[in-house]
């Protein structure tokens, strides 16, 4: 699938994502924010980083960009949109995904390997996938918030869990409601998540040799 990996000023993970996407044979390329043409792609990934320095709030300034209008178009057309970490923050700040990502309860940046339970398998990214994935988080503003917790649970695709998939508060790294680590839109073609699948795609980099991130990225290889 022709996939754009969108680079804003301050994006840091674009090359990492491309490297992982190549493993699943996606036709991926880095596209700068000011030369993004949504019609040329079937899928788009907004990678992690600190777009516009994350000034004011993570993702806010990028959410205002022309490029995000293009992403919204793709989302509306049912094309695949994946926001990772800062990409998730941008999707939320632009209103393409619902809710908000607030500063971690610990008020600091946290890097940590986390287990997430896959709570929705009705999205193109998660169809037929394993129940529990191991991926690292690395963020300062990842506390997912939505007033209606019931709705949050319905939108949730990934929830921080223990290794056997139980969603328990002790493993919640940032204070998200319902341990939400990632959500999708109603249709399921737009997903945002705080953990980094691209960092869980190379066995030599993971604590147990797993490559769970590839499971999510695989859809771009089709």
């Amino acid at each position, binding site marked *: 699938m022709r996939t754009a990996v969108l680079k804003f000023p301050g994006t840091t993970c674009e090359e990492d994502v491309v490297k992982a996407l190549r493993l699943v044979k996606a036709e991926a390329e880095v596209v700068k924010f000011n030369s993004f043409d949504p019609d040329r792609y079937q899928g788009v990934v907004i990678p992690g980083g600190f777009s516009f320095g994350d000034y*004011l709030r993570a993702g806010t300034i990028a959410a*205002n960009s022309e490029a995000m209008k293009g992403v919204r178009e793709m989302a509306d057309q049912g094309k695949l949109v994946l926001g990772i970490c800062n990409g998730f923050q941008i999707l*939320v*700040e632009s*209103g393409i995904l619902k809710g*908000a990502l*607030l*500063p971690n309860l610990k*008020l600091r940046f946290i890097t940590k390997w986390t287990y997430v339970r896959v709570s929705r398998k009705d999205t193109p990214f998660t169809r037929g996938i394993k129940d529990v994935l191991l991926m690292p988080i690395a963020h300062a503003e990842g506390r997912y918030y939505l*007033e209606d917790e019931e709705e949050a649970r319905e939108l949730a695709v990934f929830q921080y869990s223990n290794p056997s998939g139980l969603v328990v508060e002790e493993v919640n790294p940032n204070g998200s409601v319902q341990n939400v680590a990632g959500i999708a839109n109603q249709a399921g073609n737009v997903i945002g998540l705080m953990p980094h699948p691209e960092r869980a795609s190379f066995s030599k980099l993971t604590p147990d040799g797993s490559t769970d991130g590839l499971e999510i990225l695989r859809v771009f290889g089709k």
Partner: protein
Amino acid sequence: MYAVELIIVNKDGVRDPEGETIKRFVIEEQYSGIIGEVKAGKYVRFLVEAKSKDEAESLVKRIAEEKRLFNPIVHKIIVRSERVEDGSP
């Protein structure tokens, strides 16, 4: 010229760990009972050319909404302004 302040704080009911942390410090010390709620937020100050206070404030409100300087799901904003000569606060 008007100095317009945009204050962005969490809505009531949304946890505010920063405010909580400051409060925790304060209570550990000698100020419990004196200091009630502590709320932390973001402050942005714009210097605006406008004919009136009203015009200045509504411009900043509009920008805050259009550019989503706050996220209405979690934040509320307070907008205030005063007339200034040279712009120094």
